[in-house]
């Protein structure tokens, strides 16, 4: 299994989390750590870049739900871009797109953060 690489780009009140690899249960620690770091730096909008993600399983989606729980409690907005059409469909089936809107590219995602 390809371990996930997580890179955090921090800007004023905004953070972009670039993901590369597989989003499975193994990704939980790194993703939560990146999220917490971004929030600690006062980010109010966090954008997840899935462009280099090839595989997301149900455990990986549970990790996204855990992030969502935290973000709702902390008043942080989550955004996503770069998901393949298949995983957009999966996110939609689960209902995640309602809470983590997906955009075609980073610029649109940034624009939505306001």
């Amino acid at each position, binding site marked *: 299994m390809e371990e996930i690489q997580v890179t955090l780009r921090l800007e004023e009140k905004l953070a972009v989390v670039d993901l590369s690899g597989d989003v499975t249960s193994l990704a939980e620690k790194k993703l939560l750590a990146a999220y917490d770091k971004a929030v600690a730096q006062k980010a109010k909008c966090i954008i997840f870049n899935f462009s280099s993600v090839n*595989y997301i399983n149900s455990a990986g989606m549970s990790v996204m739900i855990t992030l*969502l729980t935290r973000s709702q409690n902390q008043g942080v907005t989550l955004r996503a871009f770069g998901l393949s059409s298949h995983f957009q469909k999966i996110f939609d089936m689960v209902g995640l797109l309602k809470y983590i809107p997906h955009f075609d590219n980073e610029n649109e995602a940034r624009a939505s953060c306001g």
Partner: protein
Amino acid sequence: MTLRAKLILMALLEIILTVSIVGAVIYRESRKEIETLARDLIRARTEFAYALCERYDEPDHQATAELKDEIRKVRIAADGYIAVIQNAPAEQKGVLVIHPIDEGRNINTPEFPHIQEIIQSIDAAGQSDRYAGYKDFIQTTEARGRQGEKKIGYYMYYKPWDWILLSTAYESDIFGRADAVKGRTIIAIAFIGLAAIFLVTLSIRKMFGPLRQLTELTHKVAEGNLDASIVVESKDEIGALARSFNFMLRSLKQNLRISQEFDIARRMQSEMLPKTAPQIPGLRIEACSLPATEVGGDFYDFLPLDGNRLGIVIGDVSGKGVSGAMVMTGALSAIRFAAEENQTTNEILQRSNRRLVNDIQVNMFVAVFCGILDLEKNVLYYSNAGQTMPMLCRQGRVGFLPQSENGDRFPLGIRPQVKFEQMQIALQPDDLLVFYTDGIVDMVNGAVEPFGFERLQESIKKHANSSLHDLPQRLIADAEAYTGVKDHIDDLTLMVVKVDELNAPLKSESMVSDKAVQDDETPGEVRLSLPSCLGYERMAMDAAAAMARMMGFSAERIEDLRTAVSETCINAIEHGNKLNAASRVDVLIRSNPQALTVQVFDNGPGFASATQAVPQLEKKIRGEDDPRGWGLFLVEKLVDQVEFKTMPKLGHVTTLMMKLA
């Protein structure tokens, strides 16, 4: 406190107590004896003085200076002596006539109460000659620094001279000897005690050696080392325990080996039995086999034959356990091999028999029913080698299939030359065929009356129109209700076939032959056996995707299939096999011109989608529900059909089907 310390302490207490009591008794007795001797001695000295007085009185009735010197010379113990006190006339009463230091002093004074008491006693007795008695008293005056010490005295009255002869000695001088005995006794007690401690400690240490070894051994055994043992020399109870332990370990090793052999046999057997019934249009088939012991002797099989023909086999081996399983696997191999080269059921059985007669032990045999469902001719062909005759339920009536009149009915493996007859019966829509081994009809109740064929027929009639899926279990439940027990002594195997429609094209994936894999136009099959570790699901997912690409599925559907297969495998790895790396998840990917099926087998108890509530994202976000639990939900949404099936003692299978548009 350890047992050893307790034992040592107890032994020491006992020794000290015993020796102390014995010592105390000896000391007391010796003190008494010495006191008696001392009193006798003091008395003897007084009587000696009296005798001296008598002797000197004889010639001239004078107490000469010589007599007085004789008396003064007498010594009793360290500071004891004889005093002579004048008792008359009145003016002389109480004056010391003989005394080591105070001669001439009147001691009939309150300063010497014991003297006054003696004088009173003598006077009260009329001052009679030889009047005598003991007088114990306290030294009242300063005498050689011994004031206040206890003294023993014996007095005697010498009438002729009115003398009181009084011998006295200090008690401590007399008992000094007894105290010497006491000191020696204490030393002896201490010596005996120390020797006893040494001996007791030594013997208990020796006694406990094997126990310590036993403790170490149990640790080794707990760590899985069954080759460990203990060297026993002791012949006592602890030695016996150690020897029993060695014996237990040998038995344990043997039992473990037997258990492992059973496990291998069980695996061999379960590998040999079909994991699922074939999916055949127009037919529905269900089967179940419950071994009575860990390894049973019953078996069944489906034989893919050419054309629209499906072979079915049900049988049982005369033995059970490992040997039964070995014969069973041999019989199944022989039948499968024979079915590849023979067209009729009697030929298949005859050919199998020839091989089994040579292969299996003389006292073993295999009873087999072999049938061929020909779905072009809508006929069941069959031959029976000693197996219970299957039943047919048609239009509400249940009866046996017709018995062969001319052919042999021997089980396989007994006689080299047997000639079976192939029978046939035309199939009709709604026919229900029930194939079974003798396990169910031989189940007996408390009065040892078997469930029997008639009750089985009634049971079939009762359940003929209920769900076929659990019909075998319903028939077994009826037999169990009749017998009142759930523990069956024989293996139970049942196979039911329901004819739904006739003349349907028989294009099941179960009919795939090896040849077909090489032909793009015909179905193919891929098998994978995965360790139960997360990550391996990717292999199944990639293999299924590759098969789907070969079959021409769209990229989107291939992606759906990938996720569905991955999630199904994750469930099997995590929930079915509990991440036990030694358990395998078997994946069977089959293709046919209409559809692709993926079957995932695990060893778990299974799960049905109906029992799983649809996950609620909002509840999960609010933390009211586990964020996980999406797998089955996604699988059911991503493929065309999902089926869950649990096979008793064999495990669980999830079948995914994706149809080609």
